[in-house]
Each structure stands twice: as structure tokens, then as C-alpha cells.
């Protein structure tokens, strides 16, 4: 049976292949169209091709260069493959004759060794230039210093010179570069906000550095990019790039001690007399835990649970009562409070502006 079909030049097969490729291309274009049309706000999609910082931009230009070169290589080699398949397919007229054997050709092989070497050298030089520009640039005197500490499964941000501590939502000014010192409290993590730059890992017993020089204000999204345990997926990052005035305003607000609203004394008592204080800090109270996020200005953050949920009353209530409902496997324990206590506690937390 196989022998009977042996010399059938399978045109249908070629047509099928071309049709298949066209379908895939059409599908991709259609999907790309849908995808581009869908997002609501400008930075909702954290695409590496929409850079908004100096180094994200240099990576973006490098990526275009690399894509162009690889694109040309693809076009050339694919055309050769397609040509060979069509031109040298077995034809019915060929019955019984074997093609002329060719064992090699020094000139041709030399050519397709030398050309790739040249391409490699070019790509290497282009890359080395960008590596140097990003890694070896000196730190400007006016740079903002932030220490980012990765925890299972949240981010701690400390501004040592400003005396500010916050979590999960990083605030930085637009005009000056920010130097991040990256540490880890437990396992490996990786800081990645695609529109602001590439990844740098946070590794225990090791100090890493990266810098961001944002060019535009706005909220930029990212998340942990190195598997760090059960809830690696919900270790989200929000970076708020602000005008210098807004940033100063934010810093001034963060430096205020926690508000002591006497009408919520009951809730505060619950907070300070349960295990909340073992993990969370509220400046100016006996709550000094550092295992969980600092809550001094908790209500200034848009999300809870490292971006796992919006910071609204219902979510907060659920989060305290049953963290697994929002983030199963997170290290926040279920607090097992009565409804009355829970309401009082949530009301107290809502005063921490």
C-alpha cells in the first residue's frame, strides 16, 4: 500500500500546509486585534513593548534590533525550506532514478559558518552596550533610595532616608532615578514591572540593585517573577509614578504617625491584644511586627493581600476572617473573631489613613 503511493507528489499536502499556516496567521492577527482593543486603561497591559522608563526603553530598542535580525534570518531560512520542499519534491516522472549524490562543499559550508559568526558578533556588541549602559551607570547624587524586601508573598518597601515604610505599592517620583536595594526575607523572588524595566531577583543572603528612571506618571503593574512558594501568583506589584509635588505630598502623609481615633478604641484594643501585632506594625503603637505588611497608613493603599483584592470593607472583612478565600496558602492566619469584634477591627483599620 505504501509502495503504491510512493511517487505521488502530494500537492494536496502542500496546499494543506499553506492553508494551515494562513489560518494560523489569520487567527493570530484577529486575536491581536481583539487583544489590543480590549484593555480599558492605558497601562492595564504590562507589555514590554510599551516602555515608560529610561532602561525599559533601552531594552525596548535592543529588542527591536534583535527582533529585526532574527526576523531576517527566519525569512531567509524559511524561504529556503519552502523552496526546497516545493522544488525538490518527488515527482511521478522520477520513477526509479536516484538523485545525484552530493557529499558536501567547502565553499558553501564556509559561507554559512562565517555569516552566522558575523551576526553573533554584531548581536553581542549591541547587547554588551545595553548591559553596560544599565549596569555600570553611576548612581546620581539625587537618586531616591528604596530598600525592597521580598516576603512570602508580599513586598516590603522601606525608604531609609525618608523614614517611610510601606508594602506592595511602591511610590516613586517621575523626575529622579530610584535605586532599589533588593533583599529577601525568605525564598527567592524577582521584581518585575515590565514597563519600567527588566527583572532583578531578590535572593536571601545577597544584596542586589536595580534602578528605575521613569519618564511618565501613572500606575504600572507587575508581579513576582521567580517562583517563591504556594502563593507566588498573588504577589503583585503596583508602582505609582508621581510628579515630584505628589510624591512629596505622599511622603509627608506617610511620615505622620498613625491616627488615633478614640471612637474606634474598641477595634484598636482588639488589634493590639490579639496576634495581629506579632506580624504587623502600626507606628506609634505597641504593634511592631515585621512579618507582615506595615499598616500605619493602610488605607492609603488601593489593594490588600499584595494585590489579591481591592482594599474595600467587604474584602478586608473576608481577608481577616478567612484569608484562604482570597489567597489560599498565604501566611496570614484566619483570625477567628466574633462578628462584633471583626466589625470593630475593620472600622479601626479603616481609620489608618
Amino acid at each position, binding site marked *: 500500500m505504501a509502495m503504491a503511493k510512493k511517487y505521488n507528489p502530494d500537492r494536496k499536502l502542500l496546499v494543506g500546509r499553506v492553508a494551515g499556516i494562513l489560518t494560523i496567521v489569520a487567527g493570530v492577527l484577529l486575536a491581536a486585534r481583539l487583544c489590543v482593543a480590549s484593555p480599558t486603561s492605558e497601562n492595564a497591559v504590562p507589555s514590554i513593548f510599551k516602555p515608560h522608563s529610561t532602561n525599559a526603553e533601552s531594552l525596548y530598542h535592543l529588542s527591536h534590533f534583535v527582533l529585526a535580525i532574527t526576523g531576517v534570518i527566519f525569512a531567509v531560512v524559511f524561504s529556503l525550506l519552502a523552496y526546497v520542499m516545493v522544488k525538490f519534491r518527488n515527482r511521478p516522472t522520477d520513477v526509479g532514478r536516484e*538523485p545525484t549524490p*552530493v557529499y558536501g562543499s567547502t565553499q558553501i559550508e564556509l559561507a*554559512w559558518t562565517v555569516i552566522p559568526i558575523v551576526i553573533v558578533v554584531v548581536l553581542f556588541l549591541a*547587547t554588551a552596550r545595553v548591559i*553596560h549602559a544599565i549596569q555600570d551607570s553611576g548612581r546620581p547624587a539625587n537618586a531616591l533610595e528604596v530598600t525592597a524586601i521580598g516576603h512570602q508573598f508580599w513586598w516590603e518597601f522601606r525608604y531609609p532616608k525618608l523614614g517611610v515604610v510601606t508594602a506592595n505599592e511602591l511610590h516613586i517620583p517621575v523626575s529622579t532615578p530610584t535605586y532599589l536595594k533588593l533583599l529577601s526575607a*525568605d525564598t527567592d523572588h524577582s521584581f518585575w514591572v515590565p514597563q519600567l524595566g527588566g527583572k532583578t531577583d531578590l535572593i536571601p543572603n545577597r544584596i542586589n540593585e536595580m534602578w528605575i528612571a521613569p519618564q511618565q506618571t501613572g500606575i504600572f503593574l507587575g508581579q513576582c517573577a521567580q517562583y517563591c512558594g*504556594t502563593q507566588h501568583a498573588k504577589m503583585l506589584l503596583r508602582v505609582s509614578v508621581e510628579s515630584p509635588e505628589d510624591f512629596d505630598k505622599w511622603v509627608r502623609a506617610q511620615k505622620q504617625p498613625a491616627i488615633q481615633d478614640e471612637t474606634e478604641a474598641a477595634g484598636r484594643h482588639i488589634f493590639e491584644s490579639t496576634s495581629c501585632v506579632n506580624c504587623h506594625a502600626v507606628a506609634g503603637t505597641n504593634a511592631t511586627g515585621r512579618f507582615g505588611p506595615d499598616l500605619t497608613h493602610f488605607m492609603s493603599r488601593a489593594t490588600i493581600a499584595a494585590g489579591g483584592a481591592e482594599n474595600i470593607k467587604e474584602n478586608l472583612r473576608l481577608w481577616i476572617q478567612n484569608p484562604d478565600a482570597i489567597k489560599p*496558602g498565604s501566611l496570614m492566619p484566619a483570625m477567628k473573631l466574633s462578628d462584633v469584634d471583626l466589625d470593630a477591627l475593620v472600622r479601626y483599620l479603616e481609620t489608618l489613613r
Partner: protein
Amino acid sequence: MSTDVMAIQTAQISTRPWTQILHEWVITVDHKLLGILYILYALVFLVVAGSEAMIMRIQLMYPHDHFVSPQVFNRMFTMHGTTMVFFVGIPMLFGFANYLVPLMIGARDMAFPRLNAFSFWLTALAGFLLYFSFLGGSGLYGAGNAPDVGWWAYAPLTARAFSPGHSTDYWTIALLVSGFGSIGTAINIIATILCMRCPGMKLSRMPLLAWLNLVVSGMVLIAVTPLSAAQIMLCLDRYLGGHFFDTQAGGSATLWMHFFWIFGHPEVYILILPAFAFVSEIVPVFSRKPIFGYPVMVGATLCIGFLSMSVWAHHMFTIGMSSYANSFFTLTTLAVGIPTGIKIFNWLGTMWGGKIQFKTPMLFCIAFLFQFLIAGLTGIMLGSAAFNWQLTGSYFVVAHFHYTLVGGFLFAVFAAFYYWYPKITGRMLNEGFGKLHFWLFFIGFHLTFDLMHIPGMLGMPRRIYTYEPGRGWDLWNLLVTVGAFVQAIATLAFVANLIVSYFKGAKSGNDPWDAWTLEWSVSSPPPAYNFALIPTVVSRRPLWDLKHPEDPDSRYE
């Protein structure tokens, strides 16, 4: 084995009680039976690890899906990766090497048949140990089971503080045991190729498949030993108070990374070189031409082998290495593209001027060429350290290495199945089923892994059990899952073909493809001792010389 055992094997195979047949398979030291055992073992785990992938894809179909918990998802990707690399990839390549290398170099068995059996059963034990963790282990989450530290198991996630219970131990011990098995087989293959070639088969006349397996085995010896050492160190850390990787006691997390990737990167070449080996044998036969530039192909293989030892830290561009280290590993990584490119061009050169027959093995090889080209180009993107800072750890890198391991390795393995199944069983695989399998798998593969690059570039990290809606990832993930289902259906068609053709397939005869290497000179399946009379060869294509005495290859080499 004596001649009467051979007679039993060939003539009375169906009349013996099943216990006796089973006993024979367990005690065998025949390289062909062990090869088949390796291949069947790899196929079983291919289905198991494929099912784990399906569970992950269903979970990622929609944002905030609740098909499985994060704990289960993390176990699935750990088990999927570990299984595919150690219990599908390596057994599959050793299975084909075991079966084919002695036949192709004109030997009657491997150099050390008992070591061969020992190595197989070690590997088999390792796979069962890993899967026993579902019953015996408990992972990061304490109450769970099966390892959930990812297939590269970065420290300190594997420390007892973060991985209580025994699941990580099952992972460690399984890899250690399978490592010993791999080292045993690698030594065996090297010894066989260096010492057991038939008269006239100089190294320069050896089939490329044997050459590539020689290089692969050398790489296994160099790469697997550091992994085994690291596993022993991890055991010391976990049970005897060692602090190699225990960061809480001053250990180094990056030390593990170096140990793992100095194994891990050669490992991917260990998997892809056998794929090159299959393609280098199959493309010439279906183009009806000898391989183009044989010495250059051998040189490029050796070159890839050497370079592969110097690229490991390109998995670590984000750990804060110096700009010099990042530049160095960029250069070595890009340099791998040179010998690899030479190989692709030489295959094209082989097809050039040929008469290409689009049989199923050739279809898989052509798809391999197309896909491996793309995988190589995305590899260049990832090899450029600065671009890598954006791409690594995202779905782009997942798409890239599945392009090499599925689009490259697995497609070549499928080609090898269609090509050598007639030799192994004496029956042809059904061509219609084969084409169905090919097209379904081709479409499913491209639907899944072409589109998977996109969410990576849109900022989607790998190893997340769920994601936020509205980030532009939803549609891609849905389509990727659809593609995964198409691949699963195609795999079922393949398995069905393997089973049905075994009983009903057309008889193949000794040489169904009109091929040129020695395995096609013996009966299908080959007799227990392979060659009644050890052959003597005078060129790289001994059967060509036999079929064309008027114009033998030996005249040109």
C-alpha cells in the same frame, strides 16, 4: 543466549505462558529488549506528564479559575517538568540509543549488557520513587503531597523550613537514582561506540546517529555528576545539618543555581542532540541523498557539546551578576547559534537537489526543521542578556523551551517512531493514522506554543496558578488551552496507531524505506544476536554500496 532461545523468541512467542514472557523481559540483558523497555517507560510517563500539563492548562483557561488549588497546581508543574526531563526525555533517548547504536555500528550487543539492565532498572525505580511521593510525601504546604518546589528546585525553597515533610526528599532521591542510571548508560554507550564497531567502520564512517549519541553520552557524564553531587548536598542540608544551600544558616542560594544549571543547560542539548541524530538519519533517506557535509556535521556536534558547558549562567541573568559575567554568557550563548545554524543549513543542503518523499517520518522532520529554527531564534533573543531581563521567567521562556523540547525533541522522536517502528516490530505504522497524527499535532502545537509567547511579552510570569483579568492575557491563555487539547487528541491517535499497527499493520520486510544503514540489513525484528555474520563496511552507507555496486559511496569518501 543460545540458538534455541532465539528460536523460542521468534517462533513460539505466543504459546508461552505470560509469566514466562514477563520473566524474560525482567531478566533480559539484550540491548533491543532494554531499548524497548526504555521507550515504553518513556511513553507511559509522556502520557502521565502530559495529563499534568492538561490540568495546568484547564486551570489557566480563564483568569481566577478554580479548577485546582494553588497547592495542586504547583505540584503539577513540578511533576510535569521533572517527569518530562528525567523520565520521558532521558529514557526516550537512551531507549533509541540502546536499540539502534549496536545495530548501526554492526555490534551484537552493548559493551556491558548487565550494566545496561542495571541502569534501566535504576531509572525505572527513580520514576516510581518520584511518583510514590503522591502517597508518601508532603510538601511546602505541610499537609499536601508530591514535590512542589519547581523542577529546578531553587534553594532555599527546598530547605526544611520551607518544604517540611518528605516530598522534596522523594524528588531529590529520585533524581539521584536516575542520575546513577544515566551515568551507567552513558558509560555503556561510549564504550560500545568506541570498542564494538564492526570491521571497516572507522569513526569517520560511523552513522551520524552514533556520533551524536557518543557526544550526548560524554555530556551526560560531565553534566549529571554535578547534579548528583548537588542532590547529595541537599540531602545533607535537610537531614544532617549541612548548610550548603540553607540561607537561614548562611548558605548560598546561588550556589544551587550554579550546580543546577551547569547540569541543566547541557541537559537541554543532551535532549536535542538525539533529535538531531534522528533527523540526520531520516532526512537523507527521504531526500534520497547522502547527508551534506558529514565532517562538518560531526564538527558542529562536538562544538555544540563543548559550548554547552559554558552557557549555564544564561539562566541566571537576573540574579545580579556583574556586567562582565552577563556579557560573557551572552557571547557563549549566542555562539551556540553558529554550529546549530550549520546543522540546519546542512539538512537543507541534504534536501537540496533531492527527491523528497513526504512520508510521515519526513513530515515530522520537516516540521522539526521549521520549529527548531524558530526555537533557535527565540533562543537568541533570550541569550541577549539585556533582552533576557524582560523575557526570562515569563511565558515567553516557557514557549521557547517547549518549542525546543516539543517542537524539536518530541517531533523528532515521533519521526523516529514512524521510521524505526517497522524495524522494531516488523510491521509498518499506519500511514493514514500517521498523517492524521502529524497534522493534528502540528496544528495543536502551533496553536499552543506560538501564542504562548505573547502573554509572556505582555508581562505574564510563569508558574502562576491564576492571573488577574484585564491584563490582555485572557484570550491567549484560552487559545493555548484549546491547542493543548488538540495535541492531547493527536497523542491519542498516535498511541492508537502504535497499538493497532502492532497487530494489524502491513508487514514491513527488512528494509521498507530503501535505507542505507546497517540496521536495515537484518530481519525485522532483528534476531537476538543481531548479525549472524559480523558485517564489514567500506563507506558511510554500507547498504548503498550493496544496492549500487556499480557506483559505491566508497569511491567518493
